[in-house]
């Protein structure tokens, strides 16, 4: 009996790419989805939680502790017979690569779709890596959507393909699909699909190396069959005439720019544009025949030459390998236009790049991370600051973050700085990490640091949420992805369980307590060299609903001698220097009343002014 509500099938809605992917998951009868938040992928899970509620869909949803665990959860559900999905950003796939490569060999039971959002540019990421390359490396097929509407359709096709060939299938949307919105046709939701219960067979699901060789052969057969039999592996003409000396082959989000540019310019109307829905694996024979029939073919794809490298004979091909397409940076419409104009020999005016004076991002006014960074900088002015991934990477603005590598690296790198024989500055190290990142990849690094006796201070900035990506729960929060109550992991017990001997918890708004806790940690780790000390600076994110914003507003009084400490060292967006009047001013609309600046001001010039209530 159906319990899932149908929300008017054939409804058209203005959906974000990530919402469209979530809709595709719901329309595919997926029974489980797991994810770790990361721009530009985070809204997929958020949209799933909305539809689960709206449609009473029984899909199980979780924000997992990290991408590796998320993958394993989804894979377990697939073996149990359920359609499942796992969602992450591309650097998350680095973390989940271990299970992905093995799962490709073992195969799946219920359809398993791995959704990995790429960020050419990069806009909000450490790298511009192309997850389609990872799909190739793992030998799993990858869909490359060009629009939100296509992302929905491809999500559905990915589940079908996965179940047909018993193979994980990747969906790789780029940021311009994830964060695009479009009017999208929706179909009704589907009850969870089940392919039958798990049957034990250790030669397959727990295969030893001898059987892995057999499985590798089977995987190669699957990929070959997909490339030969599936139409999505073949180029499809989306614009222009069939007969022409030139052709463009493209894939994914950049194909939308290509199509619009060619369609809008009559001088380009003779160039056919071909798009490949699964850039790996491609039908190499069909692609080669297409290239052989032309004098020149241009390949445009984001961000690595995945299609291009699979072409057998590249002598008549222009692309990244030939140097006709830039090796880095997002392929924006302007870049694509220049490539196409050069390729087609059409004369065009060189467009001049505009000057941009972009406003740098900054920690919010009232962000509890700001006082923590201020105090670190004040007490450890000559130390090395290893930072991490999250809002608090913006500690660079306060001069309190010197390094940022990857999730959890603040702790591992702090150990390295501490153990290195070549000491920098005063030889002290302070690592900063957020609560979600600590759970994600910081815990093993902390155990390692304790075990090896590394002397450094770790400041765990606990705002009780995954803030940067929009406020997702962590293992310490009391709710799950869909809002259901969660078992809260006790952070202090976890840290003590890792073997940490010096642990303090402070409210970062409390200047004296913060100063005292960090001084104590400095004594323990740096002066007495007794190992890692941890200071948890705990206060809810100013943007989260649980945050208590004060109604008190402050103003700068006559005592101000314009020393600029508040502007330079606190870097609060609500405080600015008005050049014309030569005064320091607090912006009422931006200030959130944390009052930390009162303690920071050396001249005691800042005081409470009025209560907004």
């Amino acid at each position: 009996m159906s319990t899932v509500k149908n929300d008017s099938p054939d409804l058209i809605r203005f959906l974000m790419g990530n919402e469209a992917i979530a809709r595709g998951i719901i329309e595919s009868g997926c029974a489980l989805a797991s994810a770790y938040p990361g721009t530009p992928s985070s809204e997929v899970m958020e949209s799933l939680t909305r539809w689960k509620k709206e449609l009473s869909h029984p899909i199980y949803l979780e924000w997992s502790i990290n991408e590796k665990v998320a993958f394993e959860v989804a894979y377990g559900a697939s073996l149990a017979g359920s359609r499942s999905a796992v969602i992450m950003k591309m650097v998350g796939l680095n973390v989940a690569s271990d299970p992905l490569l093995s799962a490709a060999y073992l195969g799946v039971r219920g359809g398993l779709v791995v959704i990995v959002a790429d960020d050419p540019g990069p806009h909000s990421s450490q790298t511009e890596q192309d997850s389609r390359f990872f799909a190739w490396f793992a030998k799993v097929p990858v869909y490359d959507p060009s629009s939100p509407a296509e992302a929905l359709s491809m999500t559905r096709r990915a589940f079908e393909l996965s179940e047909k060939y018993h193979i994980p299938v990747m969906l790789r949307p780029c940021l311009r699909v994830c964060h695009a919105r479009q009017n999208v046709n929706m179909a009704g939701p589907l009850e969870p699909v089940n392919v039958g219960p798990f049957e034990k067979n250790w030669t397959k699901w727990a295969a030893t190396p001898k059987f892995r060789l057999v499985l590798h052969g089977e995987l190669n057969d699957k990929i070959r069959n997909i490339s030969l039999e599936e139409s999505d592996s073949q180029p499809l003409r989306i614009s222009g005439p069939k007969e022409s000396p030139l052709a463009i082959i493209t894939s994914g989000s950049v194909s939308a720019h290509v199509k619009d540019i060619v369609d809008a310019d009559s001088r380009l109307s003779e160039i056919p544009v071909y798009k490949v829905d699964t850039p790996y694996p491609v039908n190499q024979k069909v692609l080669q025949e297409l290239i052989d029939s032309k004098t020149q073919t241009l390949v445009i794809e984001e961000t690595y030459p995945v299609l291009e490298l699979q072409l057998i004979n590249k002598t008549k091909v222009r692309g990244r390998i030939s140097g006709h397409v830039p090796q880095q940076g997002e392929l924006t419409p302007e870049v694509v236009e220049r490539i196409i104009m050069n390729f087609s020999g059409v004369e065009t005016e060189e467009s001049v790049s505009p000057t941009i004076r972009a406003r740098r991002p900054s920690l919010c006014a009232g962000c509890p991370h700001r006082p923590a960074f201020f105090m670190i900088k004040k007490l450890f002015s000559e130390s090395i600051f290893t930072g991490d991934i999250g809002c608090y990477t913006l500690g660079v603005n306060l001069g309190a973050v010197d390094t940022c590598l990857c999730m959890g690296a603040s702790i591992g790198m702090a150990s390295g700085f501490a153990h290195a024989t070549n000491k920098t500055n005063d030889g002290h190290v302070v690592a900063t990490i957020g609560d979600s990142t600590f759970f994600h990849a910081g815990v093993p690094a902390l155990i390692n640091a304790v075990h090896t006796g590394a002397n450094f201070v770790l400041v765990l900035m606990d705002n009780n949420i995954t803030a940067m990506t929009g406020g997702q729960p962590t293992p310490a929060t009391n709710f799950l992805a869909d809002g259901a109550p969660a078992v809260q992991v006790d952070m202090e017990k976890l840290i003590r369980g890792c073997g940490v001997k010096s642990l303090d918890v402070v409210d970062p708004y409390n200047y004296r307590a913060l100063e005292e806790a960090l001084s104590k940690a400095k004594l323990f780790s740096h002066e007495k060299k007794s190992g890692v000390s941890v200071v948890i600076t705990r206060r809810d994110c100013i943007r989260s609903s649980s945050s208590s914003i004060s109604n008190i507003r402050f103003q700068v009084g006559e005592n101000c001698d314009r020393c600029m400490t508040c502007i330079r060292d606190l870097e609060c967006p609500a405080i600015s220097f008005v050049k014309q009047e030569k005064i320091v001013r607090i912006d009422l609309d931006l200030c959130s009343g944390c009052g930390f600046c009162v303690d920071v001001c050396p001249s005691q010039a800042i005081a409470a002014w009025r209560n907004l209530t």
Partner: protein
Amino acid sequence: MTQMILCGRGGQGIVFLTRLLGDIATEKGLNVISSETHGMAVRGGSVNSHLKIGPFSSPLIRWGQADCLISLDSSETFNNKHFLKKDGVVFENSPTPSESDLYRVDATDIARSIGRIQLENVVLLGFSIFLSNFEISLEDIKRKLSGGSRHVTSEQNLVALKAGVRVAQALIQ
């Protein structure tokens, strides 16, 4: 066909405006596609949205193609003016007087007087009456804004829109 850039600082409601106009266009059966900024930039950094109504595949507006620029922060106008076509118009949140093709309103002041600083974006929407071939009418916007789930918010939105329209009409005369 309309191509519009909406820009400002993170937290000023750029995405809200983009969604509002996109929803209306979708309800009217029009083809619409947009692109918006998320991630670290929304922590007070520069953000912009592209909104395109018509037969487009790409969500990005090319340089020199936008019909109009809605700017919630005057310093962001500069960062986005290269998107404007030659006869494109700018609607800007600023206390400075208007110039030709650069229509200004002190939306911050109006929003503050209504009691919610976040209404700046809706005030600026009142300037859409300047757009001659815009597929979305003021009536469409009013209908959408009054359909909000929270009565108080809907009322405030309509007050903000009316205030924006009043300033725009005064500029036309």
